[in-house]
């Protein structure tokens, strides 16, 4: 029987891992739900953001928060540029899966060409800093990533719910023709949303650089679980993505603590199958 401390630590660890899942899922959920673009390149962008944070930090001693101030706006522009290409070629929902897979492979190759396939680690003085809460330890960087994910999820939810742009985006996703009849310029807002999604990938990348060891193939490590998070959380539902991330993170972590760790991946996909059986309209 696992001790209460072990269980508590597993829950903490799962919540923090779930925060990262939620952060990565946020941009993907928005572009899939509101633009009908299944953007696999989102993972490659996040890793590119991580490598750039690493590069700026190790080669030019730029602190990660300052690096993020450069990378996030740059990714916003990059996201808009990607969307320009998608719009020009009229990429469909299914087509986007193939095209963005290709973009992800190209980005992986570029990363490997520049940084090689070898592992990269951004060593910082605070990498292993933890906050002690009774018998439990809360890693500081993961906590910051989780809080950032929560802040972005709440902010995005409010943006979509209360602002004109947010309402227009949701209306266009619901019925583009009627939205256009009411004067919604979907094209312009789609550029904005693509930029925002890519910027979120940049933010996730900054945290990945600080928390993980980097390798080009890591792009694919997140795909399965983050897709599960997006679908369980509901498309274009920022709060749902965050909560689904936390749910999967905790489920996996507790499974690792009380049963065989190898069963952990089964949990996220079992949850996904269950949700799809009970709520097939989520995709």
């Amino acid at each position, binding site marked *: 029987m*696992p*001790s209460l*401390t*072990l269980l508590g*630590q*597993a829950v*903490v*660890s*799962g919540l*923090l*891992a779930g925060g990262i899942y939620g952060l990565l899922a946020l941009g993907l959920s928005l572009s899939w739900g509101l633009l009908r673009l299944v953007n696999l390149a989102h993972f490659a962008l996040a890793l590119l953001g991580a490598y750039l944070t690493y590069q700026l930090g190790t080669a030019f001693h730029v602190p990660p928060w300052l690096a993020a101030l450069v990378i996030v706006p740059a990714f916003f522009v990059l996201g808009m540029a990607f969307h320009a290409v998608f719009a020009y070629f009229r990429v469909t929902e299914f087509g986007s899966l193939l095209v963005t897979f290709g973009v992800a492979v190209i980005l*992986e*190759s570029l990363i*490997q060409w520049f*940084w*090689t*396939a*070898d*592992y*990269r*680690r951004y060593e910082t003085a605070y*990498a*292993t*800093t*933890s906050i*002690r809460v009774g018998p439990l*330890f809360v*890693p500081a960087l993961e906590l910051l990533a989780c809080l950032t994910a929560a802040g972005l999820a709440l902010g995005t939810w409010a943006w979509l719910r209360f602002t004109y742009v947010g309402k227009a985006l949701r209306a266009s996703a619901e019925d583009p023709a009627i939205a256009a009849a009411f004067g919604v310029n979907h094209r312009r807002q789609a550029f904005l949303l693509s930029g925002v999604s890519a910027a979120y990938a940049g933010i996730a990348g900054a945290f990945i650089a600080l928390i*993980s*060891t980097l*390798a*080009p*193939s890591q792009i694919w*490590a*997140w795909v399965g*679980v983050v897709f599960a998070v997006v679908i369980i959380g509901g498309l274009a539902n920022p709060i749902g993505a965050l909560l689904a991330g936390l749910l999967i*993170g905790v489920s*996996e*972590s*507790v499974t*690792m*603590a009380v049963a*065989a*760790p*190898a069963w*952990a*991946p089964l949990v996220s996909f079992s949850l996904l199958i269950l949700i799809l059986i009970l709520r097939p309209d989520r995709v």
Partner: protein
Amino acid sequence: MLALWRLGFRGALAWLLVVAFASTAVAAPSGPPVRIGSTLALTGPLAPTALLHKIAGEIYIEELNKANGLLGRPVEWVLLDDQSKPDVARSLYEKLITVDKVDLLMGPYATSGILAAMGVAQRYQKVLPHHSFGMPHLAKYEMHFPTAPFGPQPNVTVPTTVFDALAATATPPKSVAIVTSKFPSAQFLSAGARDVAAKRGLKVALYLEYEFGTRDWGALAARVKDAQADFLWVGSLGLDSNQLLEAMKKLDYTPPRHFHLFPAPGPLALAPDGKLGLATTVFEEHPPFTNNPGAARLVPLFRERASKANVPYPYVDTQAGGSFAAWQILEAAVMATKSLDDKVLGQWLRKNRVPTIIGTLRFDGPNNYGDDLFKVKQVQDGKWVVVWPRDFAAPGARLLPP
């Protein structure tokens, strides 16, 4: 001619012999190239380690061509990317043999890829030297030749070497926690470590298997901390060890002693958490290993290339050493038999012992495995040094306590 005349007949003959030998020794290889085909995981999760094999192979081929090639012909390495996937490796070996029509084969990197390539080599009856296969009992093909010298029962001999090393210290461990990847060779050796530990009277406080590609190390770290064992055995591949140690550090826990099966050598040696970590090896850059002239030549070349390729730990270790040895046994067989015929080469390798930079290899044991040549190394001052057996320890080095 006048000079030759003055030397007299015997002097002239000697002079001509010297000139002839010298011209042969430095003659550039000529004719159609001998094509040697292989794959490596140039991309994918195994790529960081496969890069070390690529550098070692390139150096070997270049040196070979600077000398006299193989049988006086230049050597061309047809290298393809198997993307760390055994199914891709299998298809590419089929292509190397049937489409590229290579003369000889060299193995890919890591157990699963080698097993896939072995099936193809067997079908076409090609000799397959390889450098990184960890499950000898699965290698049934009579013309595979391993230079990862695990011996026929590494699940017994490798853990025994490690526990022997620990037992020779002032405070041998009384309990062990074993955490291992489900990657086939890692799981195989770690399950063996559990049995060996139990037989030696150590308490196995924890035995866990995790999936290859695990992301969340927090829960695993919490279980290791909870077990409070004297010694941690990590059946790791690549960066698993770094990630687990880091996750434990975040829980304010450092295992008293820790061993790592197949770690990424650089990141573990350079990480603060890797201090005094143990692993196995067949070659490190210090005597007695570097007393071998081939090794002495390889070390500076590898360091230069690896640094240029931005490899964080640009030193020859077990991966590059094993890789170099695989090329050495292939060259030895070709040069001894003066043949590129796979059957002839295979027969020669099975009958002969081949000196390599990792020691003398033989292939006459069960499943072509000879002796277990693995040693125990430890991270000391940010660098790996062999500490056990004592005959192979770096000058002045010994296994340091925590």
